[in-house]
């Protein structure tokens, strides 16, 4: 089985201890970008979960138009960083995997949004000069 943390480590990032976001664990400055969220699929998962209380695996898959394998790899990375929680139950005989955004994930998405807004503001200032 593939190590879900391998991609992060290959970029020189240490895996964050459980309960602590990579930003907090890595001690990166507030101006740096959260690479965990920056990836399009992971950004989609976190954004979708910020809008609702919870979503199932199949709902996220349909929403982001991605594959089972791709979604499960990226959802696992978010789960390991404590950005999302995953609950597995049964709906009759069918397994049901449900994801929720954690307070850490919500805070990191807010930070990411602030970062993007700051980037836009800074660019506008540069263009005005």
């Amino acid at each position: 089985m593939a190590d879900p943390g391998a991609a992060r480590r290959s970029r020189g990032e240490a895996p964050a201890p459980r309960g602590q976001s990579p930003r907090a664990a890595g001690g990166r400055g507030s101006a740096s970008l959260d690479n965990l969220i920056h990836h399009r699929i992971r950004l989609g998962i976190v954004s979708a979960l910020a809008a609702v209380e919870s979503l199932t695996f199949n709902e996220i898959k349909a929403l982001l138009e991605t594959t089972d394998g791709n979604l499960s790899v990226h959802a696992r990375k978010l789960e390991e960083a404590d950005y999302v929680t995953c609950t597995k139950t049964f709906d009759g005989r069918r397994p049901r995997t449900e994801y929720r955004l954690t307070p850490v994930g919500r805070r990191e998405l807010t930070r990411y949004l602030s970062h993007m807004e700051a980037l836009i503001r800074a660019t506008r200032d540069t263009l005005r000069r």
Partner: protein
Amino acid sequence: MVPSGAGHEPISESSTLHARAMADLRFIRETMASASAFSAFSGWGLILIGGVATACGLVAARQPTRLRWLMAWVAAAGVSAVIGALSTARKTRTARQPLIPGPASKFALSLAPAVVSGALLTGALERAERFDLLPGMWLLLYGAGLVAAGAWSVRVVPVIGATFMGLGAVGLLLPLPWSNWLLIAGFGGLHVAFGVIVGRKHGG
């Protein structure tokens, strides 16, 4: 990386970053709007509306005059509108979606023209004493409204709308006593059936 002192290049790099940031913000906004569409439509609300419509339809069938039959269905429409608004508001609140313009309001705005048209035509047809056309017209317009509003909700909503339109087309051909049962089948049965589907597949 573009050197900071390279003429116009820092602006070009800024423009690229700006475009990327804008694209990211747009992606976040669209994803949140789509995700909330999964849950804003309340299955339990639909089941309740179906129950109210069935009860009112049975009461309407026993009315001695066509005007009182009409009043029974108008009352059902009023109660159903309140149930629909409250159940959607409750589900939207549960979903905690303060950062985006509510898909529920977009849904209501898309449904409204068909509902308003239905109300105006009801008045006109009542004055012309063409009660026989009312059930088919109601079902058709409600279905058309749902097909339009379905763009802001789960995929099953346009299907519900198309089913209502099919029933409406049949309703235009039937005499009033028969089409009252068609109204019960549509506003009662279809709401309950699709409410169960929405409730099971889209979180309540």
